[in-house]
């Protein structure tokens, strides 16, 4: 029976899965064949009843609330979690030992205070549910975001071809001075870059160059009246690589 071949196409036709010329051919056949037309009608009706019957359950407002909350409040990146969980206790120990150091050497006390404050900012930020206020990998998004929020401007490097990724940034304060806090990622390690105007008493006479504390590496320098700090738990060569990128851009 010639209709067999048409019937094989009727589901596809009803589901809208036929190409326009094939659908046209089916339509023409249906016009002349009452059997196939009745069959097609039945298929469409079945589709419609399932559609109507299938829209049956409505979620509770409570569930909607719970889920939108969990979607909105979750940390944006999960990749660094294990690292954070493992390293956070160690970091707090280190910060404690930094505090002890304050008593040991008066000369290094001020420097350590700055670093421990930066370390606090670094750790507290990463532990926060919303580490960054401007979440973007694009320096052209991140840089303008700071406009009007901090009293200076700075340049960010092109990261293409490097291993670093920009995660975003936030406004931060060191000794009551506003500054930019940028977070970069390198192999699942977060690195903080702090930029302040170099006039605060806390930062003014810090010796530039790399420094290794027990927990992480820091490098800092002054450039165009700005004081940069790069701080993270990656190796000194990685800190230096990011510092160089920033220095070249600034």
């Amino acid at each position, binding site marked *: 029976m010639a209709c067999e071949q048409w019937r094989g196409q009727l589901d596809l036709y009803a589901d809208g899965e036929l190409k326009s010329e094939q659908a046209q051919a089916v339509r023409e056949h249906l016009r002349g064949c009452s059997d196939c037309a009745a069959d097609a009608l039945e298929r469409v009706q079945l589709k419609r009843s399932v559609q*109507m019957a299938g829209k049956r359950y409505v979620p509770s407002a409570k569930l909607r609330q719970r889920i939108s909350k969990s979607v909105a409040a979750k940390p944006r990146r999960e990749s660094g979690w294990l690292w954070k969980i493992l390293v956070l206790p160690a970091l707090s120990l280190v910060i404690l030992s930094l505090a002890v150091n304050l008593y040991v050497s008066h000369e290094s006390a001020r420097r350590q205070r700055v670093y421990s404050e930066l370390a606090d900012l670094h750790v507290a930020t990463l532990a926060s549910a919303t580490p960054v206020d401007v979440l973007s990998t694009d320096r052209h998004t991140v840089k303008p975001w700071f406009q009007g929020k901090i009293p200076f401007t700075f340049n960010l490097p092109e990261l293409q071809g490097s291993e670093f990724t920009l995660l975003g940034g936030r406004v931060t304060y060191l000794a009551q001075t506003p500054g930019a806090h940028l977070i970069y990622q390198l192999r699942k390690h977060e690195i903080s870059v702090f930029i302040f105007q170099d006039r605060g008493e806390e930062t003014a006479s810090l010796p530039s160059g790399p420094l290794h504390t027990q927990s992480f590496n820091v490098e800092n320098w002054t450039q165009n009246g700005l004081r940069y700090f790069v701080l993270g738990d990656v190796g000194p060569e990685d800190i230096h690589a990011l510092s160089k990128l920033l220095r070249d851009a600034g």
Partner: protein
Amino acid sequence: MKVPEQRVSAEAFEELAMPLFDQLYNFARWLTQDTAEAEDLVQETYVKALRGFSSFQLGTNFRAWMYRILRNSFLSSRTGLRTMVVLDGENDDAVLPAQHTTPESLMLEQADRDTVQQALADLPVPFREILLLCEVEEMSYQEIAETLSIPMGTVMSRLSRARRALRELLAKKRKGAPHGL
């Protein structure tokens, strides 16, 4: 629903995922046949999807991706393991010959919503889910194939079998109905 080729954020996830909430719940409720389980399943889906969002292939179908996560979570749940039966003849990619019109199937028009709902609930899960994806979610065969991780040919044959099974159930229910519905 295509996602633009750009780095996406948690906000993007929220924007894409929350509009699917009602549909996902309806689907989950049909799969689990239980309110509490459906709620847990939807919750689990969103948590997993958010966690895996960075691995979501940009430019691919987000809706199918979400449904796939929901379905896979269901399959690994206790109810899912119990209800998901293996279908015979799944490798038969040919579209099955269509049913001849029978007096029963012509009466479908009169089949009321309750009867169809009951019949849908009685169908094996693989049939129920593919019908819901096709008719309620109005997914294309391509989207269904992505969601269920099966080839297009299997989508067609399974749909065809699901419809036949549904017709048979409806015919039986009508015959068994006290007033000869």
